[in-house]
């Protein structure tokens, strides 16, 4: 590590089922890596100090703030973003529920809410009011007043229970299907 030259690190991370690697300055945040390097601009930056939750993504299935995490910290882990949810044009049940229940207005915070809700419903398919509040309490929405968001997550939970699958289970199935025939890039 030379004194004056800008140091670089190698980031190797699986994003939405695809292995990615890049040489970056260590200071690059996970959010900027996703948005700028990978073009996954569905992850939004609302505050860049870990409060608003617009940048929430899943790291090994757990919802984290990508704005207060370095890209290099994600090395060796699996990151899931909003872009992984819809399958060939078909909205994920969580996405569809937000549409159906008017759980969004401007939509800027929505990907973060959906990712946070995905973690919750994967672990707890029938969350109590308290569990819902605990998860949603970590995300800020300035448009909806939250009521419709609560309804959206409840609706998604119900639909997922009917299908007998968790939000991430559904996703993994879709990713596998996509990866299998291509023989290119996927395949872990």
């Amino acid at each position, binding site marked *: 590590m030379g004194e004056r030259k800008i140091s670089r690190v190698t980031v190797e991370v699986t994003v939405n089922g695809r292995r990615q690697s890049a040489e970056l300055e260590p200071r690059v945040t996970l959010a900027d890596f996703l948005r700028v390097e990978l073009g996954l*601009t569905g992850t*939004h930056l609302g505050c*860049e100090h870990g409060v608003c939750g617009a940048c929430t993504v899943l790291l090994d299935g757990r919802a984290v703030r990508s704005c207060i995490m370095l890209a290099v910290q994600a090395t060796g882990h699996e990151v899931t973003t*909003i*872009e992984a949810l819809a399958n060939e044009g078909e909205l994920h049940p969580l996405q569809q529920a937000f549409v159906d229940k008017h759980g*969004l*207005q*401007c939509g800027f915070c929505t990907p973060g809410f959906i990712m946070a809700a995905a973690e919750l419903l994967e672990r707890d398919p029938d969350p109590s009011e308290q569990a819902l509040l605990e998860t949603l309490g970590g995300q800020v929405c*300035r448009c909806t007043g939250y009521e419709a968001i609560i309804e959206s997550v409840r609706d998604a939970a119900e639909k997922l229970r009917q299908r007998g699958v968790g939000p991430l289970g559904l996703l993994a199935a879709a990713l596998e299907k996509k990866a299998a025939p291509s023989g290119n890039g996927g395949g872990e």
Partner: protein
Amino acid sequence: MSSRIPNSLEELPVSEIRWIGKGVERLEDPSLVTGRTEFIDNVVLPGMLHCAILRSTYAHARIVSIDSSAAEEMEGVYAVITGRDAARLTNPATTAPEGWGAYCLAHEKTRFVGEPMVAVAATSRYLAEDALELIIVEYEELPVVANAQAALAADAALLFEEHGSNVMLQRKFTWGEVDSAFDQADLVVSDDYRWNRLGANPMETFGCVVDWNPADDMLTCRGSFQSQSYMGLARSLVLGLPSNQVRMISHPHGGSFGGKGGFRGVDICALLSKAASGRPVKWIEDRLEYLLAGAGQSWDREYTLQLALKKDGTVTGLRVKLLDDMGGTAEAFGAVSAAKPLAAFTGCYAIQAAEYDLTLVATNKVPQSPYRGMGPPPHNWVLEQTMDKAARELGLDPAEIRRRNYIPADAFPYTIASGNEYDSGNYEAALDALLDMADYQKLCAERDSAQAEGRLLGLGLVNTIEPGVFDWNAYAIVGLESTGVPEGITVAIDVMGRITARLGFSLEGQGQYTLVAQVLADYFAVTPADVSIVYQDSLSAPPHFGPGGSRLGVAITGAALGAAHLLERKLARVAAVLLQCGPDDVELMDGFLRVRAMPEAKMHFAEVAGAMLARSDLLPEDIDPQPQATYVWTAPGRTPADEQGRAKSYLTAANACHLVKVEVDPDTGTVDILGYWLVDDCGTRLNPVTVEGQTMGGIAQGVGAALLEEYVYDESAQPLTSSFMDYLLPSVYEVPRVEKKALTTPSPFTPLGAKGCGEGAMHTTPAAIMCAINDALSPLGLSAREVPASPRRLWKLLHENAD
């Protein structure tokens, strides 16, 4: 066919209304929920540079010197500009009131902490921020004007020396026989109030990508512009470019609420682009910048309010004295918020004598910007709070004193003392519906028994008017004197018979594209999914203003209906040729142009449009063969303001009545909202689901206003709330679940009877919560007269002022 634009659902050319008034799914949602919507920060252009802005650390200081040489030499930096460049190449911002503007970068002196000083364009935002650390600014501190009272002091430092005073505007408006109302009153009730600064804080801050092409001097600005054409005109004035060389491209934005701003950022990026030989320059305002000096600070007010009453509770006179701290300049049009209360000055009440003693002053805080509601929310609180005080003094129930003062349902259209005309309403019906829904008597009994046990439980019952469909004339008293705001839509049918609507605003959350699609789908008997909405930039779109002032839903309904109607007439003329009859014999019904007397002789509109596009040679020469039409809607019957500011300004007057139950914890000073009920009436609900969304969002922001949100400055005007750890937005825990009911009193003045409703509950919720807190405190003889009622304030009131 009718020769008039339809203004009721019955007049639409369909046998069954399928979309308007229904909770139609929003066209914009699939793109938003998948993260595909192109917000401005997603935009990447070839050669694009990134701007970072060095900001003033002093509230008031002379700039002695700026050394940016090290930044200029840094690898990756393409341009560095200072206030000297701004003064050489641009004009100061246009303002209202006039003459209180600054350059986009501080020149010679800085007037508030966070004012842009130096800007850098570099190859990444990381590098641009690195470069800022190499810049040295030497300041010479000036005496600070830290608040409105200080601004008025005889020896106050001057923000703008050329004005000889910090007073931007001082005037008393008198409407009716105010003095005699007070002279003859049985009772005069008066109180002082303080509303502290708060603001919009949309989840997406402002952003732009600007390129100034040196070859043709064309300025192209992409950004989250709430009103692109208005913003473009202001840029042409500031940058000295002809208006048709400024092209504004508005991207969907992550919320706005009036507080998106970005004027200086666009000008700075324009100058940086010019300095960097026309490379596009992106600036994404970060949250610290937004909180420090963005367009998110509004309403910094000291009020005195007086009511003159008869013994029976009839209010005969109203005096409002307002001192508003506008901050360092008038660049962000925050003064509009002091003018807008004229549109509903006396609320729901028939008070024909009123006075507004208005003083706007400059201080060393961030310039005020608009925020949802644009000024009336504090006005409504002080009026409603004083009504409660009068009720207490007269021994009347809060519901009863209001009932005794309502404008009667048969008195509409009704001209209020401050000059605006309310279109329609039934306030007593809304009140009764609310009292019934919430079981008010039972709640009062519960409150009484809780208070008897010493619990601080209270009820707040408040009703307000939401002025809808703004007009500039409402703001004449602060210097914006024009009348009429256009909104245009072009409706076109393509060769496949599909409908496209073209318009000049981008989405920010209220679902207006869906509304246009609903209207056109019903007009032409197709589905909303058959209609494409295409956004156009400021130089391409029909005349437009965009969202603002609870206006767009009504305006685009008018524009879409107007354009559809013009198109229908065109199609009818062509159909008449093809069906060999007179044009007046043809009508549109259920998607078909048909001969009135012989309905089986008909052609689908797509066939007619196809004929126009393919075989214009067969049509008479005086027929325009394009199957498209543009209509520009403006509110009818608006009048210029008179010398007392009176005008027919906002076209509609929606009404809401809220009831809230709170409990104050005397040990901690915290407030719990235990119940919330509301009845509102915004005329015809064109999409009830989105209307309800506006209501709930307004409640959340109202909760924030009443309990959480505040920009705090210290005695040297240094900001103390510059992160989301200190400026507190309501979360899911703080926003109550709400029991709601809708009444519908259609507006006689708008297309389809809808009223402006976008600001909604923000007008009412802060007042309702504050009135409830004061009801809870009333057994102690205390009153909370400062917003927000934070734990710090309430605890002080309960423990240090109790006497």
